[in-house]
């Protein structure tokens, strides 16, 4: 809510309370929310009991009030004028003897009563608002404990898992282990480089002559899981390259695809003089 709204409300309240005569009402015109409010305030200012007042009388006052406001060059909202026109019409109808009113037109007495009821209902609503406002309100008139005792929360973890998850986990786990096992057997089908190197090193210690590499490769193991013969040769070749790089062996080949010879290199021969 903007301050101007609040200011206006203050004005409205002041106006309503101080509205002892038509002048105050004229000044308050633009702060009334509508013609019904003005009408109600008018009745109240004249200390009229809405339930008993004649609508003719109230209409007169309203019309005078509007006329005064116009004389004071105040801007009057359209619905105030509609109400004025309607009240003038209603008043004229109330003056006409009943038999002269056409059958298809509403009974002016009924209209007058409806207006009274409306004003009473508005009065009730405003009184209700006032009583509501006066009720002891929380944090305005009444207060709760200013230093409430905190609740000490402890949380217990409750572990959750359902059967489907359990079964799913088991099957996924086992399926994974099947794949792992398949991979492991492939690994075993290669003759390990480490083993080939160890074997070759042992052989080279006593070897001073050139030997073709295939005669140095270990014989293939028997059995279903054993690596193929090519793997022994490949690993031995790899080991030979490694040992040569480390200066522990020498390699020799006459031409591409010719037999590959290998021999041990003695420590002494390698040692710089």
């Amino acid at each position, binding site marked *: *809510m903007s301050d101007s*709204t*609040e200011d206006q*409300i203050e004005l*409205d*309240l002041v106006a309503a309370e101080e509205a002892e005569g038509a002048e105050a009402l004229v000044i308050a015109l633009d702060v009334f*929310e*509508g*013609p*019904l*409010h003005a009408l109600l305030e008018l009745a109240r200012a004249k200390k009229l009991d809405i339930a008993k007042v004649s609508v003719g009388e109230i209409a007169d006052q309203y019309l005078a009030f509007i006329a005064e406001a116009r004389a004071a060059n105040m801007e009057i909202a359209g*619905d105030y004028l*509609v*109400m004025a026109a*309607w009240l003038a019409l209603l008043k004229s109808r109330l003056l006409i003897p009943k038999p002269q009113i056409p059958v298809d037109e*509403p009974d002016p007495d*009924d*209209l007058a*009563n*409806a*207006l009274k*009821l*409306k004003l*009473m*209902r*508005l009065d*009730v*609503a*405003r*009184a*209700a*608002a006032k*009583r*509501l*406002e006066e*009720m*002891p*309100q*929380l*944090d*305005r*008139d*009444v*207060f*709760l*404990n200013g*230093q*409430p*005792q905190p*609740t000490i929360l402890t949380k217990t973890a409750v572990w959750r898992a359902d059967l489907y998850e359990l079964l799913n986990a088991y099957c996924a786990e086992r399926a994974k282990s099947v794949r792992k096992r398949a991979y492991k057997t492939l690994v075993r089908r290669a003759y390990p480089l480490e083993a080939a190197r160890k074997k070759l090193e042992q052989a080279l210690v006593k070897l001073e002559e050139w030997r073709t590499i295939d005669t140095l490769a270990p014989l293939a193991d028997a059995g279903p899981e054993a690596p193929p013969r090519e793997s022994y040769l490949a690993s031995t070749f790899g080991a030979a390259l490694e040992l040569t790089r480390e200066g522990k062996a020498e390699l020799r080949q006459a031409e591409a695809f010719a037999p590959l010879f290998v021999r041990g290199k003695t420590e002494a021969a390698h040692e710089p003089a």
Partner: protein
Amino acid sequence: MNLPDPPLADAMRRIEDAFSEGGEARRVPPSPDALRAAEALLFAGGEPISAKALGEKLGPGVDVAAVLMQLKSDYAGRGVQLVEAGGAWRFQSAPDLQRLFAENREAPKKLPKAALETLAVIAYHQPVTRAEIEEIRGVSLSRGSMELLLEIGWIRPRGRRRTPGRPLTFGTTDAFLSQFGLASLDALPGKDDLKALGLLDPRAAQALEVPRPSDEAAPDEEPLTEGDDAASFFVDHLGEDE
């Protein structure tokens, strides 16, 4: 809203009979332990507690209503009181001691008069549509009044009128009751008098046209269903009004 169907009603009667053998006099004064525990929870805890929640805290076999009544009368006339407001029980400072707090506390923002009057109309006339509120107040609802009340959480849409356009009907919330210290809507001041005067039916006396008419007929209200667009209604209007 629903009456128990016959077998259920029978069963309930049987249970009641079983417990009320001695006739009326089965109300036992609450034990000091129950009173002390309830007092600690309500007084020291600071948060309002529903009778049901209090009963759960106090354990079975405790007559919560008796405990509450006893405490309420123990504190009547003291500086701190036990009151029921908006479906929950709470201790609060006595209203007449408000002046003690006036200087230290920043007064909460006053509700604009138009919004307060709108709130009163909704409180006393609920369920009531926007058009009916306008009809009663004789003015178009100023923009923002309803939206402000929705935003504060004192009113809520509670259903729809079964009329063309199925307009939303509004009512007040528990937060409203709590704010104004009302145990229930029946505790609204003067409600019975107004009802007796026939001034509380928003749809009465609408047959005759007075300027600022409303075309509302007077049919039933249907409760909101899930998937109703009431929620989007807030958003739209709250957004618009910022």
